[in-house]
């Protein structure tokens, strides 16, 4: 086989391996998708929320939740102005209805235990449903937490029942939404809850905020029977192409290595069969003072060897390509040549 042809076949083989790998990768990918019951359409949703507060002191000065001081003398707190921001973004347009409820509670348990003996909702807004069409919802609101009022409730409880309690204020912001997406052809409802908890003690240790969170998820359309069949067709096509690439690669490999292997096979057979009469030479024999006579058949050379009682010299002229068997007799060199077959032969 000519050298440039061999290079071409090698390039073709590498290309086939790459194509088979690509094909099998996608086969695996889509087969897995089919198993995962993933659908043809999806929307990505991201929700991010921030809650922060400013402590408003009795002297009407306020303090930022982001400053290092997290503890305040409870009696010096006039109220806690709480801010929340909830942003919902979609990858495609939706029609959405949303509302939020802010609920403030006092929760208390017997001092030093987890036995809840006080739970009362104090503050609750009336939710209003808002409608929007698009990709972004930006919901922002503030509310005041009347800390002195809650402190008073705790004191009143202790006075009334004579039980010391560990109490805290809990404000929950529950954002509910229902959206309809034409992209995935369905409606979904969901909600998000944000909370802020302030212990009612002499020194109020405020939570470390702003509390921020980002959450991303996807919603998929349901698979129809037609979708499933399409998946199957894709998988079969990719399986077919992978198989054919492998078959083609095998044929190319065969073609690339066959000539060499036949040469080797022929050579090995001769060297094994006529081992006793063959001498392996390290160097090329000297033909300077001899007539070189080529023989067609190794058997003729062997017969000559038996008649002359001289050994057959073996030397591989070009590694994996050309080898010669030579019998020297009376200034004559009888040569049998084994070479790699030209593919055109």
């Amino acid at each position, binding site marked *: 086989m000519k050298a440039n042809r061999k290079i071409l076949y090698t390039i073709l083989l590498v290309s086939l391996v790459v194509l088979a790998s*690509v094909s099998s990768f*996608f086969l695996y990918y889509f087969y897995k998708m089919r198993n995962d019951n993933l659908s043809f359409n999806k929307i990505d949703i991201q929700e991010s929320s921030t809650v922060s507060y400013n402590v408003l002191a009795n002297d009407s000065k306020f303090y930022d939740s982001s400053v290092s001081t997290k503890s305040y003398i409870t009696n010096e707190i006039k109220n806690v102005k709480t801010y929340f921001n909830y942003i919902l973004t979609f*990858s495609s347009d939706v029609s959405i209805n949303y509302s939020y409820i802010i609920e403030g509670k006092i929760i208390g348990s017997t001092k030093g235990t987890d036995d809840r003996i006080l739970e009362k909702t104090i503050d609750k807004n009336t939710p209003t449903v808002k409608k929007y069409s698009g990709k972004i919802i*930006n919901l922002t609101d503030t509310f005041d937490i009347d800390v002195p009022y809650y402190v008073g409730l705790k004191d009143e409880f202790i006075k009334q029942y004579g039980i010391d309690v560990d109490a805290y204020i809990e404000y929950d912001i529950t954002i509910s939404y229902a959206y309809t997406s034409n992209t995935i052809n369905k409606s979904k409802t969901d909600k998000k809850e944000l909370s802020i908890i302030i212990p009612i003690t002499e020194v109020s240790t405020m939570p470390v905020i702003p509390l921020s969170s980002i959450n991303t998820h996807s919603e998929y359309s349901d698979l129809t029977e037609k979708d499933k069949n399409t998946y199957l*067709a894709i998988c079969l096509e990719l399986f077919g192409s992978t198989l054919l690439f492998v078959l083609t690669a095998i044929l190319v490999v065969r073609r690339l290595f066959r000539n060499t292997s036949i040469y080797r096979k022929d050579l090995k057979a001769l060297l094994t069969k006529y081992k006793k009469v063959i001498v392996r030479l390290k160097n090329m024999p000297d033909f300077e003072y001899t007539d070189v006579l080529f023989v067609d058949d190794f058997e003729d050379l062997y017969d000559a060897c038996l008649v002359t009682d001289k050994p057959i010299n073996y030397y591989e002229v070009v590694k994996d390509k050309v080898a010669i068997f030579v019998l020297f007799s009376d200034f004559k060199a009888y040569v049998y040549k084994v070479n790699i077959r030209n593919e055109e032969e």
Partner: protein
Amino acid sequence: MNHKREKKTIAYLLCISIILLVIGLYTAFASISFASPSRGPVKYDVYFSEVGTNKDVDNRVIVNNNRIDLGINFTFYGQELLANTSLNNDSDVDTKLEELNMTNLEDIKVGKSDITGIEYSLSDYISYKVYYEYDSEINNIKSPNSIAVGDMLRKNTTNNVIIKVAFKEEHQLTKDQIHVFEKQLNREIDVNLFLEAIYLEA
């Protein structure tokens, strides 16, 4: 196998397998959302940057995304707080101001005159204005126009904003208003104001 036939077989197999691969991938890419991938949820990030203020007036400023809270302690007539900030849109969509919420000075009472019985609110003493510092051709805004609902804030742009809160000059106040102010504890007015801007996709 004949060499020529073998070469032909390789060529046919190669063609068929490439065609199958192309058809398979085309079908997949054309029908699955993987093919026309959703680029993820719209990136939305509109916020006020840190606020810089003049040091002439005792003040506290808190910035939370789309909200600024200002605490100012006025003790002299004519005192003025100038706060510089910017509205930044790092989203991948153009946005428009849908809602602008500011403290209503009318709602905050300062005190009642024991002479006339009139109750004065912050608006009698304070002026509160939010306006653009620079022109922006891309956002079609002019300085020093006031910020207003409908104003544009295109993606990757910034609108510089000035918040001006001023205590009126003595000559701008009535004697009764001065009387009420003079009666305030420590002869000062603590003002807590907020500014909240809600931008949505344009």
